[in-house]
């Protein structure tokens, strides 16, 4: 067995290789979704199973779980073709075969040592535009993946170290932004080159046997740690349900239901009661579902290292008819919305048995908003961004105002950068009062973004959620405010018929779109909130006096100040 010290040392070294690959791509990427939002990831994967061995710490959390499926897909392809060679690099974005959605392009490369595959290295990044009906590829009315973009199965981008320009030509011809695509692809190649070099150096230094032993041992340790965490939870079955507003086609809610069973040091997640596959793009593939379970688990048990071992004590049940387990050509472009809901139900199911671990649900929608058109000189512009919201209240305090989605670590581009790059002007970029779910620890606030068009015409697309079902609170905490989107036309402001999803809104110069994002759910009963904290929330404008009275059972005096005595009395009376 490997000695514990070498194990600890090499764990750090291996993680650093993946981190360094992340950093290389972030810095050199062309599109802001990778460069600013860090929608990319890198890691090392098992030579025969594709299981995640080591993953970078700075990449997009959701990819951490998804990448091993991508490597498995390549291993399968190479086995069928029987022509895997040193210097090969596969590229693909097939969401049903180890992918997430079409925007995410994966590069997978075998790392050879003494003529044998030692492990795989992989890189994934979200490209700016991969064709399809909608710039930026968040097409809320897609009914087949062909309307979402090009679909590339695993093919060789490099054959024995030689770049196949044909492949790049095909990719570029299918994108609205071929320059951006070329730049991002180059960044990913650079990241893999660097990873290969670093891996070789490490093996030369420590020897192949030692490193191989470490790679076997690390997932074992993670599995053991995860099992230890699970066994601390009481045995039993715990359930939670939540809903997606609709699939973008038909205005019917879609159920995401979880029955979570703890049995000793094993956990079973059964999603069988969830809705069946839908017509629109909020379906996901099985690999994506498992990846999101991984993310939820890592948020709950932060100390478990990021590798395949985490999932070992966890059994997942999702029927093949479910919207959480679809195959081609069912559309999956809006996978981000569905996986956020999976994370929410896992937190809610565990809230009663592990209140010290969970938090109120975060705002729960990516709000992919794109404004696109042509400038006076005829050039095309596409402003595509994801917007933030509140995080849930938690055992230690109120939720974070205006945070990023739990599946990502993305930062938002500054308003000034967007205004400098596109013909838009933000007329509001602010926190949204009364959007945090009431609770002993209040949910964080969502945001209000209002954008005015400065060019003659633009088309607007929105892919959001939580317009009908608010982010829930936990442990007695209340839900946050709903997502709210309006767009201005000649006859005034409109709400989309499907609330948070719409394509082809025509905007004229001087007209606005207005987005109010949800806050986070509350934690603990709101009547237990310190009245002084409620008073401060009122003073800061986080909570209106009306809502304070309704939600928190506080009594205000004639000047709007807190009447502590009467508040205590009122709360006592309400309790009995």
């Amino acid at each position, binding site marked *: 067995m490997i000695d*514990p*010290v070498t194990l*600890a*040392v090499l764990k*750090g070294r291996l993680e*650093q290789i993946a981190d*360094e690959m992340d950093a290389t791509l*972030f*810095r050199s*990427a*062309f*599109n*802001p979704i990778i460069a*600013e939002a860090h929608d990319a990831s890198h890691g090392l994967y098992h030579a025969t199973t594709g299981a995640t061995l080591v993953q970078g710490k700075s990449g997009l*959390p959701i990819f951490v779980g998804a990448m091993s499926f991508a490597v498995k897909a390549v291993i399968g392809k190479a086995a069928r073709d029987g022509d895997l060679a040193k210097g090969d690099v596969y590229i693909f974005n097939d969401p049903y075969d180890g992918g997430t959605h079409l925007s995410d392009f994966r590069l997978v490369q075998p790392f050879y040592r003494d003529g044998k595959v030692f492990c795989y290295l992989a890189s994934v990044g979200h490209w700016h535009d991969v064709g399809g009906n909608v710039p930026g590829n968040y097409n809320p009315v897609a009914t087949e993946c062909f309307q979402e973009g090009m679909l590339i199965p695993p093919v060789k981008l490099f054959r024995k170290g030689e770049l196949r320009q044909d492949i790049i030509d095909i990719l570029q011809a299918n994108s609205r932004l071929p*320059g*951006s695509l070329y*730049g991002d692809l*180059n960044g990913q190649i*650079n990241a893999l*080159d660097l990873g290969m070099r670093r891996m070789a150096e490490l093996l030369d230094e420590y020897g192949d046997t030692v490193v191989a032993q470490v790679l076997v041992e690390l997932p074992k*340790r*993670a599995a*053991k*740690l995860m099992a230890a965490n699970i066994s601390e939870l009481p045995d039993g079955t715990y359930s939670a349900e939540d809903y997606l507003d609709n699939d973008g086609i038909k205005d019917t809610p879609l159920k995401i239901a979880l029955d979570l069973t703890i049995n000793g040091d094993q956990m079973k997640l059964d999603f069988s009661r969830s809705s069946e596959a839908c017509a629109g793009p909020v379906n996901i593939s099985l690999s994506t579902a498992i990846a999101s379970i991984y993310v939820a688990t*890592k*948020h709950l048990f*932060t*100390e478990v*290292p990021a590798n395949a071992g985490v999932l070992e004590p966890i059994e997942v049940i999702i029927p093949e008819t479910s919207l959480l387990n679809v195959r081609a050509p069912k559309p999956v472009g809006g996978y981000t919305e569905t996986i956020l809901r999976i994370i929410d139900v896992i937190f809610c199911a565990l809230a009663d048995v592990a209140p010290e671990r969970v*938090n109120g649900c975060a705002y729960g929608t990516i709000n992919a908003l794109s404004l696109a058109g042509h400038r006076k000189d005829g050039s095309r512009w596409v402003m595509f961004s994801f917007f*933030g919201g509140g*995080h*849930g209240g*938690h*055992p*230690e305090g109120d939720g*974070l*105002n*205006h*945070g*990023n989605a*739990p599946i990502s*670590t993305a*930062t*938002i*581009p*500054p*308003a*000034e*950068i967007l*205004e400098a790059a596109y013909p838009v*002007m933000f007329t*509001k*970029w*602010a*926190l949204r009062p009364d959007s945090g779910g009431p609770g002993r620890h209040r949910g964080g606030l969502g945001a209000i973004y*209002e954008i005015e068009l*400065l060019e003659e015409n633009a088309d607007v697309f929105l892919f959001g959620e939580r317009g009908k079902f608010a982010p829930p609170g936990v442990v007695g905490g209340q839900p946050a405010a709903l997502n709210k989107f309006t767009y201005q036309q000649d006859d005034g402001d409109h709400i989309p018929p499907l609330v948070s999803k719409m394509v082809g809104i025509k905007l004229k110069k001087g007209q606005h779109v207005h987005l109010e994002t949800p806050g986070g759910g509350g934690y603990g009963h709101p009547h237990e909130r310190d009245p002084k904290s409620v008073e401060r929330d009122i003073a800061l404008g*986080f909570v209106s006096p009306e809502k304070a009275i309704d939600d928190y059972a506080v009594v205000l005096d004639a000047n709007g100040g807190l009447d502590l005595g009467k508040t205590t009395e009122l709360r006592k009376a309400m309790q009995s």
Partner: protein
Amino acid sequence: MNKASSSYAIGVDVGGTFTDVFFLNEATGHCEVAKVPSTPGDQSQGFIEGIRQKVTDFSDVSTVVHGTTVGTNALLERKGAMTGIITTAGFRDVLEMRRRDRPNTWGLWGQFEPVVPRNFRLEVSERTLADGTIRQKVNPTEVQNAARELLCLGAKSVCIAFINAYANSENEQIALQALREIWPNNYIGASSDILPEIREFERTSTTTLNAYLQPTVAGYLHKLETALKDDGFDGQVLIVQSNGGVMTVETARKLPVRTALSGPAAGVIASAHIAVEAGFPNVITCDMGGTSFDVSLVAEGKSALAAQSNIDFGMTVRTPMIEITTIGAGGGSIAWVDRGGLLQVGPESAGSNPGPVCYGLGNDRPTVTDANVVLGRINANKPIGGKLEQLDVEEAKKAIETHVAIPLDLEVMAAAEAIIRVANSKMAGAIRLVSIERGYDPKNFSAMPFGGGGALHTGALIKEVGLQSALVPRYPGINSALGCTIADMRHDFVQTVNGILKTLDMVSLDSKLSDLAAQGLKLLTDAGVSFESHDVLFELDMSYLGQTHTVDVPLPLNFDGGKIGVSAEVIHSAFVTRYQEVYGRPLEGIPVRILNLRVSTIGRRPKFDLGLLAPEDGISLNDTRTGTRNVWFDGAFHETGVFDRLPMSIGTQVPGPAILEQPDATICIEPDLQGRVDRFGNLIITRKEGS
């Protein structure tokens, strides 16, 4: 101002525990050092006391250069002034919304409390567009009404941060003028003066933190100057900035945010100077404290500068700072075994109070220092710092046994060594981060420890990372104070351009660059400090069109008062060269963009001869031997010589294993390493021949 005889240049570094003072007698060339306890309530007391240790008549002092943590502490402890922000309608929450981030990748329990609460952030109607067009002019009366409201609330300082003010400062300047008419003090600022650079959160945050620090830092500097004058001082006080250069007190009052990393920056400056003089232009400085390990890269004698830094989550300061990478591995870092059976060191730390188990102040979980004590590397009878008489080795051993040895099924000595190895590996990771990850080969670098604990680990680090050698300065414990006395004066300017190189007006770019250069040189002249020479550096932040991250592109141009001769060709070729250095493959056919221009003006202050620090001749290694200890290396005890470091003569060779002690540091030379005293009294540690 300078006196002909007996004039001292004094460097003062005020740390959390000690105030270090470095005295250079400019007339005789004589150097001395002093260390006194810091006075946290009013740092100026310890400051004056420190100088009094060696100088009685303060009129003998020509210059006092100061690395201060007053600003840093006010930020970390949120003890700045009540500050107001006046901003564009619709944008009052920019400071609190940040860039939509969260503190940790995993776990969703973050919180953020901005230094200016929401009711102190007021909006006025005004708007500038991204191209600089004024869409709505600001109304001075509205600004004054907002200011009065802030005064009523109790604001002591105020700043203006308007959207797109980097592109046109007109509205901000009108608002600033309106403020001046009614605001009762000078603690006012505008974002277009503090940081005329695109990105509203970073600009607002920097401007706000500046205003937040103004009353605190200005108050401190006033106290300091008064106290110095009361003792007869009539020389000049200079303050070290985070960029490693000094500024006048007048500038520091206006731009206190530039002192955010003042203290550590001075240490890096000293290291760079010592290293270059000693013939090691490439070093990685390593400062090991109680809870953290700070590393910084010096390449070809120059420190790396970072454009911005987060003092805490969401507390962003965007001014050039010496790039210091911090990881949670210090002497107080706690070693533990996780439930998966993996040995971990940190991030939890026992700090300096209660501190390591061996301090006997109540902590019972083993730390890195405890492992060093158990292994015999630290002298338990002579702890550094003088706070304690004796370290408790047995308790430290017991803690390692309980928390590490038993869970891992190791002997206690092996467990102690394992703690050191894991800690070293974390530190090595930090060194790789600043070297390998930036494309520098560790083979060409030496480690340079400063602070009290770093020199215990640097020997191991050179092996772990593959560094060339380690260079232990003569006085590792007072490095920052020494750095103060040799820091140059430096002023940095930034201005957002945001244009395509091909279509940019070169005449206007040239005059922008030369105007800022002239402005910077005037600041140097007005400071009344004597310089050996001036340097002006021009740099552009550039990228291919479509990229959001930029590379810093130094321009090979000189300033002689007139045009500097900038051209699209010069810029393009400088960009391609730099891009290749940073990323590898340059790209064809994509237009090149200039985001920001940067100008730095540097006044080179005379450096003193480090040879003045050198030890006396004629003392043999044996003369400095103070004893022998059993020290554990590589799985076994080695009989190890213990030596008094400071008296060691130039050229002394110290074969490992050896422990070298001095009042402010302990140096560990492992069995396969050797030490040599250079002509300045520095100790150079290298591998033994054949190992």
